Structures are given as structure tokens and as C-alpha cells.
């Protein structure tokens, strides 16, 4: 921004350009993008700044943000979970059916989360103990669980206008939408677990170097199993919130949400290779996607065009992330050209 940077700083930046860029991007890069986006929106989009609009944005991102929080655990270990969108549907459906059957609201919510956790357990067992590739495992469960949601509901939405936990989607507490409170709670817990507990350090260790983690005494398989359960429980909660919001069980709920959640995690700077990233980044990533969506609607940008813009934003974010490791990137490109080099 400034035209005349300090000569010393400039020299240092030249010397270790790569490192500095990565350092800055990791810490403030994505936040800058968000601030820039908010400033632009406040200038160009009418009513963007109004409190009710901001709260609406917060509520609209809560489902995706909660999914992304759980997914951050998985991606930090170097895994991936494509099934979270389908878990949203299954857990929502089960929770609504339970509520209709007369189960009290809190229990229905817990049932929904437990269903999500159970789905995650399946993913985790297959990935950790059968050593199957998580991409394939969760691609399979994504399809299976979607089929399960259709099967349970017979392909029809189950509408229940007096759904006992509908406040979870539509209610307010102290003027703040309940889903937003849930989202904040999820991120606080996730932050605490990842940053302050032994378990969190083990999650980072597994993603940083699974072999080294094992030899250092980390029970790698257990950690891998657990992160899929965490992602499942989060997806279960997101599913219940979604069902509460639309006051019905929708077998199509959450279709494609896994991709938005992955986008939020990656935008937030978590490396898909594992071992690097922050839960706070994931929240910012989810907010950016939400602001972008809402802002573009307020700007009357066509839906098709919105998709184009979102796609570009995601690719840009990933490109910047891999630019941080440009040496590796280059060596991969060249390595392929010359064939295996003998060390």
C-alpha cells in the first residue's frame, strides 16, 4: 500500500521473499481478504451493513461453518471427508422422525448428532483400520448415506409444522439467532481442543508426519478414527440445525455442502496435506464464502455469475496456498519431466 517501504525491511523481504510471504499470508492474509470484501460490500451493496443483514449472514453460514469446523480436524490429519453433506440429510431425517415419534427436543437433537457420529465412525474405521483411502471411503459413504436418506423418507420430505426443536433453526437468544450461537460454541470448543489439549497436538502430529507420530507414541489409528467421528458429530449437528431451519426432514438436505465446507477449510489456510492450519482460519473462510454469497445477492448478481465468482475465489485461495510452498511445487513439476532421480 505504502509507496516507500523501509529499505531494511525491503532488503529483508528480498532476501527471504518466499518465507515472508508465507508468514504474512498465514497470519493475516485471509483476514485481509475478508476485510477487503466487507469494505467493498458496504460501499456497493445497499443495506449490507445493517445489523439484521449481518445476523442473517451469520445464520446462513452457520451450517456450513459447523461442517467446516469438523472437517478441519479431518483435513489436519491429511484426510478428507466427502460424506458430511449426506450426513446432514441422514441425521436431520432421523432427528425429525424421532421428534415426531414424541421424543423430547433435546433428545432428538442428541440423536441426530449421534447418528452423525456413527456415520463418522464407519468412515473412521474404514480409513484407519482397513487403511483405505479416505477420498474413496467417504465418496462411497456419501453415496450410501444419501441413498439411506431417500430410503428412510421414501424420497419425500417429512414436514412437521410443530417440530419441537425448530427453535434451533429459527429462534433467537438475546437477539442472536440460535444457529449462530451453536456455531460460535462449536468453534470455541474446536479451538480449545485443537490448541490447548493433548488430543489437539496429536491431531497436528498425525498430519505433520504420521510415521514420526507413531514412533513418538501417538496412537495414530485412534486419532484418525476420532477425527472422522468429530466430523460426523459436527455434520449431525449441522443436519439437525438445517432440519430445524426448514422445519422438515429433507432427503436432499446438504447436497453439495461437503464442497462448500472443504472450500471454507482451504480458504482458511489449512493444508490439504495435513499438519498445518488453524481453526480460526476455517471460520474466516466460511465467513468469506457467506459474505460473498449474500453480498452478490444484494448486488443483484445473477446466480450463474455468483458461481463463476465463487469458483475463481476458491482457486485463487488454493493457488496462493500452494505458492507458499513454491519450491516443492516446482520440484514436482520438474521431477515429473526428468523421471525418477536417483538419490
Amino acid at each position, binding site marked *: 500500500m505504502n509507496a516507500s517501504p523501509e529499505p531494511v525491511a525491503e532488503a529483508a523481504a528480498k532476501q527471504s521473499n518466499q518465507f515472508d510471504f508465507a508468514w504474512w499470508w498465514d497470519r493475516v492474509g485471509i483476514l485481509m481478504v475478508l476485510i477487503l470484501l466487507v469494505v467493498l460490500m458496504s460501499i456497493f451493496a445497499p443495506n449490507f451493513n445493517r445489523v439484521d443483514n449481518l445476523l442473517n449472514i451469520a445464520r446462513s453460514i452457520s451450517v456450513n461453518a459447523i461442517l467446516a469446523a469438523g472437517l478441519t480436524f479431518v483435513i489436519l490429519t491429511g484426510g478428507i471427508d466427502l460424506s458430511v453433506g449426506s450426513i446432514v440429510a441422514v441425521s436431520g431425517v432421523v432427528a425429525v422422525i424421532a421428534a415426531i415419534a414424541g421424543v423430547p427436543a433435546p433428545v432428538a437433537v442428541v440423536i441426530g448428532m449421534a447418528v452423525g457420529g456413527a456415520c463418522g465412525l464407519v468412515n473412521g474405521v474404514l480409513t484407519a483400520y482397513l487403511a483405505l483411502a479416505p477420498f474413496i471411503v467417504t465418496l462411497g459413504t456419501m453415496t450410501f448415506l444419501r441413498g439411506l436418506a431417500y430410503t428412510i423418507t421414501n424420497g419425500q420430505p417429512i414436514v412437521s409444522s410443530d417440530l419441537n426443536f425448530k427453535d434451533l433453526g429459527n429462534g433467537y437468544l438475546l437477539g442472536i439467532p440460535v444457529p449462530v450461537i451453536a456455531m460460535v460454541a462449536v468453534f470455541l470448543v474446536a479451538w480449545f481442543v485443537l490448541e*490447548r*489439549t*493433548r488430543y489437539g*497436538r496429536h491431531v497436528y502430529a498425525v498430519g505433520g*508426519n504420521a510415521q*514420526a*507420530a507413531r*514412533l*513418538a*507414541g501417538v496412537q495414530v489409528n485412534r486419532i484418525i478414527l476420532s477425527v472422522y467421528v468429530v466430523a460426523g458429530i459436527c455434520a449431525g449437528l449441522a443436519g439437525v440445525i438445517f432440519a430445524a431451519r426448514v422445519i422438515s426432514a429433507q432427503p436432499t438436505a446438504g447436497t453439495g455442502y461437503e464442497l462448500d465446507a472443504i472450500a471454507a477449510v482451504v480458504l482458511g489456510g489449512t493444508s490439504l496435506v495435513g499438519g498445518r492450519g488453524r481453526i480460526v482460519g476455517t471460520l474466516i473462510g466460511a465467513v468469506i464464502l457467506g459474505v460473498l454469497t449474500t453480498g452478490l445477492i444484494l448486488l443483484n448478481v445473477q446466480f450463474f455469475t455468483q458461481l463463476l465468482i465463487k469458483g475463481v475465489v476458491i482457486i485463487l485461495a488454493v493457488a496462493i496456498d500452494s505458492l507458499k510452498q513454491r519450491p516443492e511445487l516446482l520440484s514436482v513439476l520438474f521431477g515429473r519431466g526428468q523421471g525418477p532421480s536417483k538419490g
Partner: protein
Amino acid sequence: MDKPLLELTGITKRFGATLALNDVRLDLRAGEVLALMGENGAGKSTLMKILAGNIQRDAGSILIDGQPVEIRSPRDARAQGIAIIHQELNTVPAMTVAENLSLGQEPRNRFGVLDRGRVLRDAREKLARIHADIDPTRPLGSLGIGMQQMVEIARAVSENARVLVLDEPTAALSRAEAQELYAVVNRMRAEGVGLIYISHRMEEVWQLADRITVFRDGGYVGTGTRAEMSEADVVRMMVGRSIGDLYRHEPRTPGNVVLDVKDIEATGLGPASFQVRAGEVVSMSGLVGSGRTELARLIFGADRRSGGAVQVNGRPSNPADPSKAIADGLAMVPEDRKGQGLFLDHSVERNISISSLDQFVSGEVVRDGAVRKSVLEQMERLRLRKNAIDLPTRALSGGNQQKAALARWLLRDSPVMILDEPTRGVDIGAKREIYELIDALARAGKAILVISSDLPEAIGIADRVLVVRGGKIVKELQADEASEENVMRYAVGAGANHQTSNPGTQP
């Protein structure tokens, strides 16, 4: 004899500060087998990489038929008729034998489509030339290692190789497979190919080689015919140097048995038994591939063992997982520091504290302040500068990375420490510090098992030396009776061919 087929003179190669090859020479005649011998790190592989065109020499000349040639790439090497069979095979297991044999030069018919009939015919012809009885339609990966190696040799021969280098070709072969290989080697010699045979096994060198050239520490030591040399001569040429005072230490007085290993085994390993006492440093010596690291991994629960028992301080330790071994009081610093030891992207603090977090948690919550304080204490003890604590471990030098790896177990304060190649890739200063640390740990009552390929080190820092060959402990030597010569003799199995020993299968 006549003019040599291949002559290398004055070859020098430097990697950064290390002189990997210093003015070495070698000559090879048509129709002979030249054994190239030397300890790990003697420079054999570096020279072969230069010959293969994988790396470039800094000085010296390469002559073929007396004519100087330049080998700038593997392609140049092939064009000169030089073929190298590496320890790691250079083939595609999922493809058939025939496809592998035509790789990169697939015959096409007049429509530009792969001519499968010719691929198969050519393959049969190539295999017949070395009298290898292999079905070319089988996937390569379905064959044993020995057969796969034959396929590579067949490929080399089909490219009209005049110089064939075999780099430890029998390391992974069974006895029967090795015999077949020897037959192929003999046939090729009879056909006038010059063979350079790199091996650590005295027995096969004595069976195959016409002449022997020995390297040591990147330098040329000497060459002689098999008739003029004895095994003892070769061993002396390989190791002959004095142990500096780098290793000198005051005698230690060992206490009770802390680590008691009885008959542990796994496929191709053991049964192996030994003990390490409190206050004792025991080193495991042996050639690369002898099974030292694998034995250590069995003790540490990193690999599963099929039998045997381990006790730590009298309590049985049969870990299914390293985490259990650590709880039992074992610690291991792996050989592959970057691949298996450290989290290079994570901070030094995280790397050091990862195995001791159970001592620093209230419930599951890590007490950060306490962790930091204890990590700093260990860093200070190892003379790691304090402000490195938050740096990514990647940013440290090799020596400091190794210190961080050691600090992890100092913090844990494990009674048994297994250190696999603790000074590999570490400069001399850090080396000395690590030796001092090992000595201090032993004096503090730790039982220490060191694996080292560096013979003077293995002997110099230890109270006892266990020599490992073929996954078994073939000899135990007290420090005062362990010399480089006799450790090497047991490690390569010299003299064993006169008795009925087991140079056969290896892991």
C-alpha cells in the same frame, strides 16, 4: 593383459564441504569380474553414479577402450554400453516381463500401434541370451526379487552392455537365487563383458571376482588379484585407520540388567537375544541391510514380532505399538530423522514435547507454561539456542535437528534408549557433543543401545559390540576385544565359507 575396457583416473567429487571421492581410480578389462569393496560411505556408490551419468565428476577422466568419453546423462552411459543394476530395481511391477523389457523402445507396427507380437518375441530372445527361464507374459511384480533382477540384467544385455555394474545384487536374494545370479555373471564374463561387482559379502567375492579394488573414506586404497590377496588383507584395507580420541571415555560400571531381549524374531530376523545394563552403552554393528534397525523396531513395537520376549527392569514389555513401548520405558531415535523422527513443519517445542505430554496435562489440557519450561531445560542441556524453540524444526541444521530428536527422549527420561545412527549427517562438533551426552546418560543409569554404521564410533562409544548379520547376532565382543578388523570380519562373514555358516537369506 591388453588395454583396459574401462579406465577411471583421478576421479574427484565434492558435495558441499564433504569430499565424497578424492582422486580415485579403477580399471576394468573385458571378460573379468572386478569386485569393488569398502565400508558404507567409502564412495563406491558415488563412483557408480558418476559412471551411470546420474551425477557429474568434479575432476578426473573416464576412458573407454583408451578413448576419453563424457558421460553427462544416463542416456550417454547407455550409449557407451554401460549398464548398472541398482539395489532398488528400476522396473515397473504392474507391467509384464515383456513390456518391461521393451520399455522406452516399444516396437510399433506400420499403423503406429504397439506390436505386441514383437514385444513378446524380443523378450523371449533377450531372456534366452542370459539363459533365464522366465515366462515373459507374467506380470513382473509376481516374480521374486531374483527373477526381477534377471529381467533387468536381460534388459542391460539386450542394450549391448559392455560394462555391467551390479550394486549389491544378492542383498535381497535367497541362496538359490544368488546361485542363479552367479551363473549369469559367469556366462557374461565368458562372453567378454566387463563386470563391476559391489558386495559386502566376502564369500561371494571370493567365488566370483578376478580382481578386487578397495576404497576407504572416498579414497583409493589398492587393487589386487584374488590370488595375491587374503580375506584378512581386504578387511584391513577396508577399515585400516586409527580411532581418534573422539571416543575415549573413562570406564563405566554397569549395574543391573535393564533391557533383556530373549529370542525375539520375525520373518527373516532373529532369533536374537541380548541384554543391556543400566549405565552401559551397547552398540549394534553390521552392514546396511543386516537387520539392526529391524531388530530395534521389533523391540520398540514398531513392527510386529512373531516370537520372543522383552523385559524392561524385570517387567515384560510386549508392545503392539510404540506408544506401549514408550509407556514401558523404551525410547527410540530412528535412523531416518526427517522421514520418521521429526515433524519438520512444527516447532521445536512441539517436536520435543510430543512424547511427554502425559506428564504435562491436567485432564487433557496441556499446561503450556510447564511444557515450555521443561523443553527449554532440555534445550539448554543440549546447547540448543533458546530462541529456536518456536522455529519450525526444518530451519535447524542437521546436528541441531538430531539434538531436538534426542531432547524428546531426554524430556521423557526413558530408562532404555535406542539410538539408530545418532550421528548420521551431523558435523564433527555436534558429534562430539552427542557422544558426551550418550556417556553422561549412561553414567546417569540409562541403558543405551546404539546402532551405528560408523565402525570406529560403534566400537569407540560402547562397552560391548553386538555384530549383526542376516538378522541374527553373530558375535558379541567386549570393547577391549573389538577392533574394526574383527567386527568387520564377523559383519561380512569372512572365514565363514570355510565353516558351515548361514550367509543365505536376508530380510
